[in-house]
């Protein structure tokens, strides 16, 4: 079998995968991305480049992904529906594929009201599930969303989506994962896990429907750097679940940064033992330099 990306290859081979998120800069300096990526070289198998996350304008995920390709690193280009309609999205898929981007993560996107341009018009022409289906059809059937045929090469991409075990209503979340798989998702990166027991319950449901056999699930981990960050995650970031026990540990720690690191390490160790989990997706917000030791200490280094 010819794999579309290195990420797909190692997931299919059954290796436990690490992906890491790189947030592009609020400026046009490519070096900011190169420095972060160089720091993480060898510690992750592929790197997510976020697409104006939380609706704050940054260097584009398209350009960031190409910068990684120039460094011989593998990007996972995030693609949200907030800022582009189906014409622009399909065009970017073709453009990215033409330059060698092989992994795409399809997201609906954070609402513009959260970002630094709250007066912007959100596009939301399609949603993440529709975007998955559109790209799958471009790739597998050679047709655009309108039904018009692609005339040159089809974008040979490995398709990913997000899943949030902590979103409400809980009962619908596994069905929604199912729908994403039906639409074309081949790998899943989950919301950051702090509440491991709820995550395990979600995975029980996922396995009971056999979905872990249909899609590669990477569990999200975001180390908490400070009490302030724990508070933000617990009280202000929609769709995250920081249990009281974790919050208390952060609050009573003599060194919250070390405690946050220890919690992340424990979480990864627990997640590794959950059946159906194929890897870890680390999002270390403005704390990328913690990733190498986290990966090493968690026993996730392949080489």
């Amino acid at each position: 079998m010819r794999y579309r990306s290195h990420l797909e290859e190692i997931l299919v081979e059954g290796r436990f995968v690490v992906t890491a998120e790189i947030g592009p800069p609020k400026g046009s300096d490519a070096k900011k991305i190169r420095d972060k990526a160089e720091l993480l070289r060898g510690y992750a198998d592929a790197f997510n480049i976020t697409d104006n996350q939380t609706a704050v304008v940054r260097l584009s995920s398209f350009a960031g992904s190409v910068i990684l390709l120039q460094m011989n690193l593998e990007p996972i280009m995030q693609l949200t529906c907030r800022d582009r309609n189906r014409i622009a999205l399909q065009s970017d898929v073709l453009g990215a594929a033409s330059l060698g981007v092989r992994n795409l993560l399809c997201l609906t996107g954070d609402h513009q009201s959260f970002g630094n341009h709250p007066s912007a018009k959100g596009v939301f022409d399609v949603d993440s599930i529709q975007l998955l289906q559109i790209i799958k059809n471009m790739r597998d059937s050679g047709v655009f969303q309108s039904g018009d045929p692609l005339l040159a090469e089809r974008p040979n991409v490995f398709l990913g989506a997000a899943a949030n075990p902590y979103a409400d209503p809980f009962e619908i979340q596994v069905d929604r994962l199912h729908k994403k798989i039906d639409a074309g998702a081949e790998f899943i990166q989950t919301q950051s896990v702090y509440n491991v027991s709820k995550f395990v319950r979600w995975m029980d449901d996922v396995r009971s429907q056999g979905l872990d056999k249909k899609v590669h699930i990477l569990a999200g981990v975001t180390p908490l750097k400070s009490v302030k960050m724990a508070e933000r995650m617990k009280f202000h970031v929609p769709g995250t679940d920081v249990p009281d026990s974790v919050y208390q540990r952060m609050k009573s720690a003599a060194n919250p940064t070390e405690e946050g690191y220890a919690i992340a390490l424990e979480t990864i160790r627990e997640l590794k033992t959950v059946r159906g989990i194929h890897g870890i997706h680390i999002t270390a917000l403005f704390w990328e330099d913690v990733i190498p030791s986290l990966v090493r200490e968690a026993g996730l280094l392949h080489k």
Partner: protein
Amino acid sequence: MIVTKQKNFEELLCSLGSGPVFLMGCSECATLCHTGGKDEIRAMKAALEKKNISVAGCVVLEPACHLNNNKRMLKEYTKELGRSEKILVLACGNGVQTVAELFADKDVLAGTDTLFLGEITRVNEFDKRCMQCGECVVDFFAGLCPVSRCPKSMLNGPCGGSSGGKCEINSELECIWDRAIQELKKKGKLQVLMTIQKPKDWSKGLEMKRRV
């Protein structure tokens, strides 16, 4: 109903100048949402006169968006309108434009901002229900519209930010997806949500004219 809110009074004063001004309201939506009915026209007249802006006359159109009816109704105000420099319309954006159509030589000013198509939920409370997309989809969602009521217009929701039945962008706003799921569950029809809703044909909402 078309839900409007009156513009900031101080800003209105700036655009009105010294007058004289003619006031027009609307007997339909603007009356129902208390922005341009008889009472509001009377109050606006008093407020302007208090600021020494003379009001040459006023009328509540029936309704403001009816071009020919406006022509008929306004005949009896020819004298007052002749004296007016400006016309302030307390109706929706449609009503303002219908009036402007009739008075090319005058400044016709919008006294309200038009917000949405919505329902009267209770006294003095209005909620968005429709954004005129041109192809109604409420049948798929227990009679609820995610196009107008989900801030991301998701057809395959909910997004990951719904919490306790509330929307992530505003804790006052009900998550319409959460609500649709509860309603469909009651009806034993939750499975309909497993159908992937195809991308919407937004061209249906771009009609500019309709003739019966």
